[in-house]
């Protein structure tokens, strides 16, 4: 039997990459791409864009006809929609990430042919925990670096509850950087903005430790892995880490590679003699950020806020176990690109795309989904 898929978040970074991958699969019959607010999806034969909104109740804002059609036919739901703004309030984020997830589960209960729900989450639900993070839902009281992390953590609690009667698999992504081959970035996220601040000499310090692991994955790999985990190797009740795992860069190495990439792909940048951000303890960073808040110009304040919304995660170093995910992907030809290989390509793409010239007022988003 071929699957009919409902994809939420189809206009996000992962969703946009997933649509053509799903459409080209022989084991996929049809893809309903839920689209909020007039967004567009790829015009492909198997793909049908349906207006809707996960925050609009258990019918997901679908028309009566579409609700009936989709709930009748869908076999797999890939829930990729999320509010990834690091700077948003908790209540704003909960509306999409917690209530929206609950709505998706309630919708799933109305689906008569459903065999699986893959919900995308983030490894950062671990918040301020440190050390090794398991592929499991673990309640913790360590706290969070930003409200996005907290909202996704709360979303997972909803999912855990839903696992009692629904076939749910959680796939936690680490930071999605860009395409492993071309370096292309579909949507600028916090890390890309942080790099831009460094490029412009507006990132004096980063909280963390020189050895703090920075876990990054390529967008094409992430999309291919999700498609596989949703369609051909679904496992109800699983929690998987789609991340670098053992293949991470230490923070000081990442800064050094970045510096070299800036010089290599924009040789004139060298003459600026811009120093790499200093890696500092969290209290020193917070004192600096508070001082900028108190007296700094708007530009510097915005710059520090970009860093402040995500970089403190580096002050809580951790590694993510990804054995379950790697086993699930098995020998499917979905090879994980090495971060040391694709990271410079992304920096190159950013430089060549004119990313450095964009204004700093773009909202800070997280995992670029």
């Amino acid at each position: 039997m071929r699957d009919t898929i409902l994809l939420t978040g189809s206009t996000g970074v992962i969703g946009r990459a997933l649509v053509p991958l799903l459409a080209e699969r022989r084991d996929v019959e049809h893809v309903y791409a839920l689209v909020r607010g007039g967004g567009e999806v790829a015009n492909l034969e198997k793909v049908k864009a349906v207006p809707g909104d996960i925050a609009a109740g258990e019918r997901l804002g679908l028309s009566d006809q579409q609700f009936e059609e989709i709930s009748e036919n869908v076999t797999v739901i890939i829930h990729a929609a999320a509010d990834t703004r690091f700077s948003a309030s908790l209540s704003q984020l909960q509306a999409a990430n917690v209530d929206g997830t609950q709505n998706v589960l309630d919708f799933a209960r109305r689906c008569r042919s459903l065999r699986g729900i893959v919900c995308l989450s983030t490894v950062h639900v671990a918040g301020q925990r440190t050390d090794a993070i398991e592929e499991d839902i673990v309640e913790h009281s360590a706290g969070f670096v930003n409200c996005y992390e907290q909202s996704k953590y709360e979303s997972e609690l909803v999912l855990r509850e839903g696992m009692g009667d629904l076939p749910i698999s959680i796939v936690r992504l680490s930071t999605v950087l860009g395409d492993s081959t071309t370096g292309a970035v579909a949507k600028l996220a916090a890390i890309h903005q942080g790099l831009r601040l460094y490029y412009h000499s507006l990132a004096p310090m980063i909280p963390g430790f020189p050895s703090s692991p920075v876990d990054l994955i390529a967008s094409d790999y992430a999309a291919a892995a999700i498609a596989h985990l949703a369609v051909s190797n679904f496992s109800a009740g699983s929690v998987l880490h789609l991340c670098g795992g053992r293949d991470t860069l230490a923070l000081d190495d990442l800064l050094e590679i970045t510096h070299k990439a800036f010089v290599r792909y924009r040789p004139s940048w060298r003459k600026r003699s811009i120093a790499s951000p200093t890696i500092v303890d969290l209290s020193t960073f917070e004192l600096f950020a508070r001082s900028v808040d108190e007296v700094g110009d708007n530009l510097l304040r915005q710059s520090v806020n970009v860093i402040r919304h995500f970089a403190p995660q580096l002050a809580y170093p951790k590694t993510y176990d990804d054995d379950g995910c790697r086993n699930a992907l098995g020998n499917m030809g979905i090879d994980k690109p090495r971060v040391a290989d694709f990271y410079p390509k992304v920096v190159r793409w950013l430089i060549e795309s004119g990313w450095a010239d964009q204004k700093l007022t773009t909202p800070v988003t997280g995992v670029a989904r």
Partner: protein
Amino acid sequence: MGSSSQPPVGVTAIECVLGAETVSVEELETRGLLETPATRLQEFGFHCVRLSSEPAHELGLRAARKLLGVASVDPESVDAIFYVGATPISHAVVTSDPRSAFNYPVAYLQYELELTGAVTTGVSQLGCAGLMTAVSMARNFLIANESASRVLCVSSDVFPAGSRREMIYNVISDGACALLVEKGAGKNRILDYRQVTKGYYWDLTTKKNEIAAAYFPTARAIMQDTLRDCGIDWSSVGLILPHNVSLRSWEILLGLIGAPAEKLFGANIARFGHVIAADNFINLRDAEDTGRVQPGDKLLLFTFGFGANWACMLLEH
């Protein structure tokens, strides 16, 4: 770092003259001379500044005269004068006659102080790093000239009356500092001096934010490089003699470099704020006078000057 075969050179005497008028930051605010609220600047460690109605060259002359008197220096024994000013107006005694742009204060001091054997040099375009650079130049001069024994370095800056007193969240005093750099010095021997210039930040008016951000990582780097050059770490540094920018920024910088707050001689920041290029050496004098330094102590001086200059000097008291 100085070669062991070179004669030791150090700073043997320091005197200063600050502006005569003491003004609180609240009063500066009342006079409209601040950009940031006074209460905020107080939180950052500033309380008073000193304003001068005397021009810079007169303040410099008084500081130098005081130094020569206190140190009992024979004027004819001075081999050179290096005169430091951060702004162009500090380097000319200007009248309505355009030719007065060539009325250099260093020559004025040479004449008034009867330093007849001294050659003169102006040190400019280094902002608050000027005096430290002049001291380094003095050392080089003394090492290069076998017969030379002492150099007088004078720094003096006075803002025009009614000028704003705040530069990137720091409060500025008028003042002059004179010091003697001598060959065979028995104290404050110069162990190392480093200067980093990053011309990208030359334009203060358009790069204010970038300068504020760049300040910290480069400051950390130059201090660490200086210590590494000398084969020591922070545990061997007896005292940090700062430029008197805000205590807040020093708290942040101490966090970056991993040095304890007790090593910072920061008392003068509240007393008179930032005296342009003179801070580090006024602080050295006051640290000596208050018994904060002992013979053999390693003293680290750090400053940043517009024109994008980071400068660091290590002395052995």
